[in-house]
């Protein structure tokens, strides 16, 4: 017997491809632009969102029948804020350097549209287990794009991956740099992320033409 029923499995699979929060729903773009200059920051951001969205969806789902609908946004905010503070404190305690590079963007997970979007659209109307899967699925879909963008931006912009100089040393002129290669400064600045995300959207839609919106 499969671990998940087919319906449940789709909750995780869909956001990874045909219903991706970034490339299809165009949510969470702001953080995808801001922190993807390095792969490490992208991965940590993805994990943080995974935690916040997974746990947050379960909490909201459990509370869904006792939250008065008039103040539901405020309740959701309180839940996200609490979770984000936990993530922030953990990062500060165990990865202080990294928390400094991510700086304000961990706090800004609160404003990540994907999180409020999933709370509103899914957790308020479904049971905890389904909501958990939905949260994990969407956070993974978000994380995949973040890691892809981070990979290309760090590789082309700084010539490194996770801080390791994979293309050689630009100062000592080793590896690719010895034949005149240079880092692409354009990839470091946030607009480049917009273009990389655009190219991902392009590739995805030309593979699956059903995703192309009516003009």
């Amino acid at each position: 017997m499969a671990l998940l029923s087919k319906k449940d499995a789709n909750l995780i699979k869909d956001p990874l491809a045909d219903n991706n929060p970034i490339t299809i729903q165009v949510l969470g773009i702001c953080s995808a632009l801001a922190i993807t200059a390095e792969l490490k920051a992208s991965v940590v951001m993805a994990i943080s969102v995974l935690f916040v969205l997974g746990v947050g969806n379960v909490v909201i789902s459990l509370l869904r029948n006792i939250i008065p609908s008039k103040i539901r946004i405020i309740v959701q905010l309180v839940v996200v804020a609490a979770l984000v503070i936990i993530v922030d404190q953990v990062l500060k305690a165990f990865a202080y350097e990294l928390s400094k590079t991510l700086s304000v963007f961990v706090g800004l997970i609160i404003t990540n549209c994907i999180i409020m979007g999933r709370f509103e659209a899914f957790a308020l109307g479904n049971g905890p287990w389904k909501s958990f899967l939905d949260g994990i699925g969407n956070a993974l879909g978000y994380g995949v794009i973040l890691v892809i963008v981070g990979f290309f931006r760090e590789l082309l912009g700084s010539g490194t991956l996770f801080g390791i100089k994979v293309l050689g040393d630009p100062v000592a002129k080793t590896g690719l740099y010895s034949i005149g290669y240079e880092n692409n400064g354009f990839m470091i600045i946030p607009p480049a992320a917009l273009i990389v995300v655009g190219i991902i959207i392009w590739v995805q839609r030309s593979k699956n033409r059903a995703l192309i919106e009516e003009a």
Partner: protein
Amino acid sequence: MKEKLHQLKLKYQGKKMAPAFNALHTFLYTPNETTHSGAHVRGADDLKRTMNTVILALVPCLLFGMFNAGYQHYSAINGFPESFSLFNDFLTWDNFLIGITTVLPLVIVSYGIGLGIEFLFAVIKGHEVEEGYLVTGMLVPLIVPVDTPLWMLAIAVAFGVVIGKEVFGGTGMNILNPALTIRAFLFFAYPTWMSGDKVWVHGAVERAGTADAISGETVLGSLAQGSDLTYSLSDMFYGFIPGSVGETSTLLIILGGLFLIFSKIASWRIMVSAVVGALAMGLIFNGIIDAGWLPEYSKFYTLMSFPYWQHLLVGGLAFGIVFMATDPVTGSQTNKGKWYYGFFIGFLSVMIRVFNPGYPEGVFLAILLMNVFAPTIDHYVVRGNIKKRLKRFKTATIYPKPSDEVDSLKTETA
């Protein structure tokens, strides 16, 4: 020859490679084969002729750029000649040899990569290859420094053609000028190769740090650092100054511009209003200096006190106004809109020059910005016209049309 081509065409018709073949078949000229049914009238001034005219206007700049590449190279090594003579110092084979070995590869890479991508997209999407890239491919080598590494140019051209043009649907659908997109990409991706005092003279980068080090700062670059002008006015006008390959000679640009205006290819409205805009901004800055509002130790002082009309002689402003701002696809379409569009290009170019020492040349940024605003300008011009006409309609007194009937009625009653 023609017969054979025609047979080949019929053979490839409907096949996947058809667009690529048709592109070569109709290169520069539309073939004189006619359709056999219905009436067809073709204007002679089609896209092909438009593009060819612009390329013709660019050729003098390209040739001058080749000579200038050599001239700047040797002058940087041996010092500028004491008494300059055009034929002994400038139009020499040595200069031309340097020029052709540095500039020609830029042209070849620009055309090779750009047209390759155009053909690829035409075959994939099944549309015809348009001549649009012929102009872009010619503009690109003229607006980059002479020593730009070829692989950088190749990447930038690929980026500019794909992201700047093909994703929007190809020639005629692009929002931004592709040549300037390529320039902007190079500028932000490889700033060390696009600014400073090493890149404008051939060989300066390799010689840096050695005993034979040479350098050549552009006029704007040295002004931005607050140093005094070392080139005479006539040097700046004729173009014997360091700079991007083809944009130094204001004289040849003006000739090209006049050619484009009289062949009615480019809009004189954009050119005139851009010049007016640049002069206006220059005058404002000079006025600020004259009024004594800016202390001499300010970092903007040198650039602000630069005589207003000389802004048109240095840097890429003239080239940008004549060949880039007048791009019929990305510019404003309405006549009134062209005035606003051009004016702000000139105005903003000079403003960026003076206020942002990081960007010694602002014309490409100004044109790209106004490219984005062009549809907005057109929108308001059209709306304004509608409003004006509605107003006129409301206040108008409408007379009955005189007609034969009235006359005949009159004669009856009389």
